[in-house]
């Protein structure tokens, strides 16, 4: 383990101390953590599965039943338990969102480092591609891509298509950020020194550049997770999810297209939305706090400070 990584771990401890003081960051962490726990321990949180159908004593499916003891969030149009759908849906939503987020962060970081570190034609190429991707409206592009890929009879599960399309389209802003940070680090002394003594590129990137990029990468991953989760829910709402593995977005698609609204079944369309908001707000809060800790905002600006500048207790004597 290199010294840089040891330093990184030591910093981590200090970081936690500073982080603890920020309430918003803690709230964000709490939101993410609870959602993750619910997804992991789903079987322990409900006796039903997502495909069980609630029935009354006559064996008829309880459709659009309002919340009651046996199904705390009521049932959907087919009699499924909404609470069970919700926490099993967390598995799908979080899995797709997190995998897509990690892919895009991995692609973005790699391309950013390569572009920043090597510069020249590679850099130009990567930057041109980000320029292009940033201008194309993302949702229509994804819809067309997903729809076409689905049609192509490839042996890929619908969720994998979603993960790949989201992951491979949302790396542009990360690539830009990482690239410019890499450029700054490259300018520093020890990189030049390492080069002078003949260290290989991979060695320099791994030992010198990556450790310093870590905070930026982590922060952006957190922020990108929120984007990925929101996008997944949107695509699923538009019908591109996997109906056999319903995520929160798919649930909302069902609720919307199967007249939960006209049936007044608020328990069907409110909880999935709140769940999405829960996780993405958690990521945003956490990400913003991390960002703020990395580059603290200016303490104050020039239009502050006129109030209370004169703190002279006795204006007569000037004391």
């Amino acid at each position, binding site marked *: 383990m290199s010294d840089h990584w040891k330093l990184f771990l030591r910093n981590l401890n200090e970081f936690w101390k500073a982080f603890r003081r920020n309430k918003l960051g803690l709230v964000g962490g709490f939101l993410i953590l609870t959602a993750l726990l619910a997804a992991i321990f789903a079987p322990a949180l409900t006796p039903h599965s997502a495909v069980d159908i609630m029935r009354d004593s006559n064996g008829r499916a309880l459709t659009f039943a309002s919340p009651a003891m046996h199904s705390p969030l009521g049932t959907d149009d087919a009699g499924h338990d909404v609470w069970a759908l919700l926490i099993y849906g967390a598995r799908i939503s979080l899995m797709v969102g997190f995998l897509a987020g990690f892919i895009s962060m991995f692609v973005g970081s790699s391309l950013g480092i390569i572009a920043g570190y090597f510069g020249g034609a590679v850099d130009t190429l990567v930057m041109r591609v980000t320029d292009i991707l940033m*201008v194309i*409206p993302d949702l229509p592009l994804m819809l067309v891509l997903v729809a076409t890929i689905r049609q192509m009879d490839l042996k890929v599960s619908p969720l994998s298509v979603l993960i790949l399309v989201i992951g491979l389209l949302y790396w542009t802003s990360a690539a830009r950020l990482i690239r410019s940070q890499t450029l700054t680090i490259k300018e520093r002394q020890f990189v030049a020194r390492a080069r002078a003594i003949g260290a290989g590129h991979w060695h320099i990137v791994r030992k010198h550049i990556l450790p310093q990029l870590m905070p930026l990468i982590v922060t952006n991953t957190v922020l990108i997770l929120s984007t990925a989760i*929101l996008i997944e829910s949107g695509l699923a709402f*538009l*019908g591109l999810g996997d109906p056999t593995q319903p995520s929160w977005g798919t649930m909302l698609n069902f609720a919307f297209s199967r007249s939960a609204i006209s049936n007044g079944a608020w328990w069907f369309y409110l909880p999935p*939305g709140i769940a999405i908001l829960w996780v*993405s*707000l958690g990521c945003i809060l956490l990400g913003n706090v991390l960002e703020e800790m990395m580059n603290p905002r200016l303490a104050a*600006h020039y*239009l502050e400070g006129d109030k209370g500048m004169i703190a002279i207790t006795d204006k007569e004597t000037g004391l």
Partner: protein
Amino acid sequence: MARRDYLIGKMGISLLTLLFVLLLDFMLFRVLPGDPVRAVIGRNVRISADVQNSLRAQFGLDKPIFPDQFVDTLGQWARGNLGVSWSQRRPVSEILISKLWNTLLLIGLGQLFSIIFGVMLGLLAGWKRKTPFDIGALTFSLIAWATPTFWLGIILLVAGSAWFGLPTGGIVSPANIGKPLHTVLPDLIRHLILPTLTFTILYLGEYMLIMRSSILETLSEDYILTARAKGMSNFQVLMRHGLRNAMLPMVTIIALNLGFTVSGAIYIETVFSYDGLGNLVQTALVKQDYPLLQGAFLLLAVSVIVANMLADFLYTYLDPRVKAN
């Protein structure tokens, strides 16, 4: 001189993007399984092999894909021929044009309100940093940012119709369809309230956040201190020296955001059954109407690229420094 170089550079990127979009759209058409003739004339039309072959020749499908077929297709697109919708059996371009104005109306209103209020709130929040107003505005923006567009639409739809009796779908009431615009204006406005509100709330938060950080940065510049030293009041400094400089990054962001407003339109039009391009895209998706989907994609992408180009052009007027760089 330098401005020209800047614009040529930006234009180059736009053209590159345009080329990429055209190529992508063209390629997507080709990778669909089945005979491209099917893609052009529709899936369920029964035709003999002979006819098929003659059609192949007629559409130039016997020629190599590059460059002949691609150039052919570009020529077709340039003449407004985007193929025939499978589900509606009408030319795609005709359908697109019939929906275009409704979407422009929705996006235009939504952007207008969210920019005006977002800039105003962001300006005030940054100026009065750390006051309850600022914290309230920040909280609102973060929540708006984290909320799925379509879900907010659903909530507003339920609330608006239950509490205010607002219409939940369409662009005018069924009885008013086809009547001249001025006679149905109040009805149209009632239908526009909820979708526009959804649009505004979502983008308002984002614009507010960006404006806030932009004004915070601007107010930390030395020329702000100069302006105060001249004897201006804080409000004068804010409006005369802060606003314009802080607006510069906003122009770029608003332009880049046009792509996201298209996403917004797709979700919101779907939720409110609003008769525009977004709803059309969603329907095409459900009905697997590829010519329509790809035509819509082409139109949306090209519009956003062109709008971006215009924004770059506008930027050179707003920031005199572009001339120097």
